Structures are given as structure tokens and as C-alpha cells.
């Protein structure tokens, strides 16, 4: 159980003490300092790209556990407010470290994916997530492969949900992406490939047709 727990939540990168804290939070959230847990998770997400891609899951489990154990949502509130704080500072974060910025976007999208409210995505996150994706679609960001990669990854993971919550902004985002693809000078070929693929992906109703799949992915070994 120990190893599979680590594997599932990808908490191997934490030190032992923190791993223990998280494991307890997953089972008995009310017995730990949930504000600390939230901070620990957010901090790590900003540093560790692997973790940021799946941290939503551990958040989800803690939220569920807390709701079940004592009908509270201290963890969720702390998590969201911390996310909001980081959101406000995102431009500065981006200026300081592209890695951290990309990790943040990955994490917030992951949270959007996993943390639902009455089976619906959290409304409060819709615009912030869009804001992040719009930022990634700006000319200066399109020059960076990391950012383009992040952008298309998020669209693959949550594009359809995001679109359902607000079609208009998705349309606007894709105007931006088309412009970027067509008009942007100095765009690397990988960036252009990624953009083309995501354009096709959305056009296909958030699914890649078999032929497109073959075109883009047939030569990828893993």
C-alpha cells in the first residue's frame, strides 16, 4: 500500500516527514494543519513539473476526506486562496522563472480538472484558467516551446470542459492561436506543429481523427 500510495499521488519527491503529513491528510484531514498541507502541495507543484501534472488528484482526495470526516472544507479554501495569490503574481512569476509559471498553469488546470463542486467544475476558476491560457498564447510566450507545450497540454486535458463553461472565451483563444500559427514570425517548427495539432483537435470536437492521430503520433515511440 505504501508504494502504490506514493505512486498514485506522486509524493516520492517530498521528504519523509512531509510524505507522512500528506498521508495523514489523506486519511484524517482534521487532525493536521490543512493550511500547511495546502501550502506544501502548492509549493511543490511550482517546483516539480511531474507533481504539478497530477497534484490535483491528491487535492481531490483530501477535499473528499475532509468533507466526509467533518463536513468541512478548510483545505479547499486554503488551497484556492493560495492559488489565487499565485495567480495575482503570475506575471512576476513568469518573469522570474518560466518553469515555475508553466508549473503553475499546469497545476491550476489540474485542480480545475479534479476538484468539482456538485459534479460541476468550479466556476471561480474558469476565468483565471482562461487568463492563463491567453497569456500562454501571447506572441512572446509562443516563442518558448515550454509555454506552447504547456498550452496545448492543458487544452487537451480540460479544453472540452472549459469550453462548456464559456464558449466565447474559447473561441477568442483560438482566434489568438490561429493568428499565432499563421502570422507569428520566429515561431519554431515544433511550436507550429503543436499549434496545428491543437487546432485540429478542437475542430474535431476535442478529439483527434484517426488520420490526424496517425500523422502526429505514429512515429512517437512512447
Amino acid at each position, binding site marked *: 500500500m505504501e508504494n502504490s500510495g506514493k505512486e498514485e499521488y506522486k509524493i516520492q519527491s517530498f521528504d519523509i516527514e512531509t510524505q507522512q503529513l500528506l498521508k495523514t491528510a489523506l486519511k484524517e484531514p482534521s487532525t493536521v494543519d490543512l493550511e500547511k498541507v495546502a501550502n506544501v502541495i502548492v509549493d511543490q507543484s511550482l517546483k516539480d513539473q511531474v507533481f504539478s501534472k497530477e497534484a490535483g488528484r491528491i487535492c481531490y482526495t483530501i477535499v473528499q476526506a475532509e468533507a466526509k*470526516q*467533518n463536513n*468541512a472544507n478548510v483545505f479547499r479554501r486554503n488551497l484556492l486562496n493560495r492559488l489565487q495569490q499565485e495567480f495575482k503574481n503570475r506575471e512576476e512569476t513568469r518573469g522570474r522563472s518560466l518553469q515555475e509559471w508553466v508549473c503553475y498553469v499546469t497545476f491550476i488546470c489540474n485542480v480545475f480538472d479534479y476538484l468539482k463542486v*456538485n459534479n460541476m467544475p*468550479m466556476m*471561480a476558476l474558469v476565468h483565471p484558467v482562461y*487568463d492563463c491560457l*491567453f497569456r500562454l498564447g501571447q506572441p512572446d510566450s509562443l516563442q518558448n516551446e515550454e509555454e506552447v507545450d504547456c498550452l496545448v497540454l492543458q487544452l487537451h486535458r480540460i479544453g472540452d470542459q472549459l469550453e462548456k463553461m464559456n464558449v466565447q472565451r474559447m473561441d477568442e483563444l483560438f482566434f489568438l492561436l490561429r493568428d499565432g500559427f499563421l502570422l507569428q514570425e520566429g515561431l519554431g517548427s515544433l511550436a507550429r506543429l503543436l499549434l496545428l495539432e491543437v487546432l485540429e483537435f478542437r475542430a474535431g470536437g476535442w478529439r483527434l481523427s484517426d488520420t490526424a492521430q496517425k500523422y502526429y503520433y505514429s512515429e512517437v515511440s512512447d
Partner: protein
Amino acid sequence: MSFRNSLRHQEQRTSDDSRKGPSRWSHCRKRGADGSLRPHDADPSVLDDGDRDQPRHADSRPASFTTPESDGPLPRCADWGSEVEKDELRTDVRRDMQRYRRRILVNDFSERERKTSSGSSDSRDSPIPTEMETDEAVLMRRQKQINYGKNTIAYDRYIREVPKHLRQPGVHPRTPNKFKKYSRRSWDQQIKLWRVKLHAWDPPAQEGSDLQAIEEIDLDDIMETESGASSSTESGTSSHYLKVVKAPSSTPEDSCSGTPNKVMRIGSEIEGSFDLEACLNEVKENGNWLTS
């Protein structure tokens, strides 16, 4: 929508959207939220990341860019935690409303069948849908009040002890029906009474609790003195309170505790003993236990 669009275009230049300082119109105001005069030379366009080190006003609200409702006014609570909680409350209320409507319809239908056969009518539990409370703001407020009551150890113990089918009207507390039309005062009073009744299931106070001195008392004494207490000169609240104690007579140790606890359930039972004196003292030091 155009307003928000222009906001987003600003993002590139400054992070005005995300500034933590006063609201976007604060430079028009002479005084800040706490009443202190604003410095005259405060340039609103300078309120960007550089402001982060400045102490925030207690109720400073960052400009909200997270409006899920498209063209409405900015939400009053601009932090995501509260917004999501509010969102959850709203969707809970909507879902409850659907369920309730369905139940009314089913009741009405079966009632009609019963009426034709027995000629009886019972409108106590099924108000006509048109007389149902549908204002979301009201329903959300009421639900919040109900949630406060349900988030207590007392409620938890109550529902575990007394299954629904064993509940006797008048004896066992009953959650007020948020869908019925009531005046604000009437509703608030119902909630108050409901919560007082629920205190009967508070866990016994902890030993060595700093709230009140605890005295060992045999619970049987309480049962016996109940009739005496109701005719005592203590205020009405006291006798009402003691009357409620009698209800769960099956498990005395679960009934009235010395200091009612409005604590959140923490999954562990607090063991202790009953303190009659504290119960009676509450009436005199009314505010005391409420704020503990």
C-alpha cells in the same frame, strides 16, 4: 463583456487586475475603507506589483476578474475560497429545490387519491408549489443557517441516536423547512429554537475544561428535579432547556451537557460528566457559553 476585454488587454502593461490594493475606483475616494485619508499623490496606475509590500486594509478587495456570471456586478466575495463555497451553496440549493418540487408533486398526486377515498386533507407538509419560497438568496441564507446547525457534534449524535422513523414531533428537534414561506423573524426564531433543542445532544463536557467548574452529578437527579426546576424561579429559558433534557431519556449520558459545544465534529467523543450548576449558570451569564 467589453469591459472585461479591455481589462484583459491591460494585463500586459500592468497587473492591475491582480493588484492587491484598494479597488479600482479607490483613487476617486478621499478616504480608504478604514476611514483614513488617502495620500493625495497616490497614482492609481502605479498600483501594480510594487504595492505588494504595503500593508493591506482590513477589507481591501482586489479587483475581481473572476466573475463567472458574465455581465453582472462584481461579486462581493472576491476570494476564490468563498466564491466556491457560495457556488456550492447555490448549486446545493438548486438541487434541493428540484427534489422538493418533485416531492410535492408526488405528494399532491397521492393526496388527491387519498382525498377522494377518505376525504381528509393534510396541507401541513406539502405547501402548494406557488407558495413555495424560491428566492435563491433567501434559500441560500437559510441553508447556511441550517448548515451551521448540522455541522455540530450535537446534530451528529442526534441523527445517530434517533433514526427518522422514531422521531416524535415536539419531542425531537426538526430541521425547519427552508422552502416554506416564512417571515424573516419567524424563520430566524425557528432556527434558534431548533438549535437550542439540538443542544440536548451535546457531548458531555470535558474534565478540566476551562469553561466552567465541573461537578459530578448523577443524571437521575436531573430527571427527578425536572419537574421541580420547571416551577423554579429561573427564567423561562432554563426550564425550557431542562425540559428538553428529558427527551432522550433512553441514554442519559448523551443528553444535556454542562457547556453546550458548538464545536465542529472532530470525529472523537468527548467524555465527561454532567454539570447542572453550569446549566443554570448559563441563564445568568448568557453570553458566556455562546462565545466560548
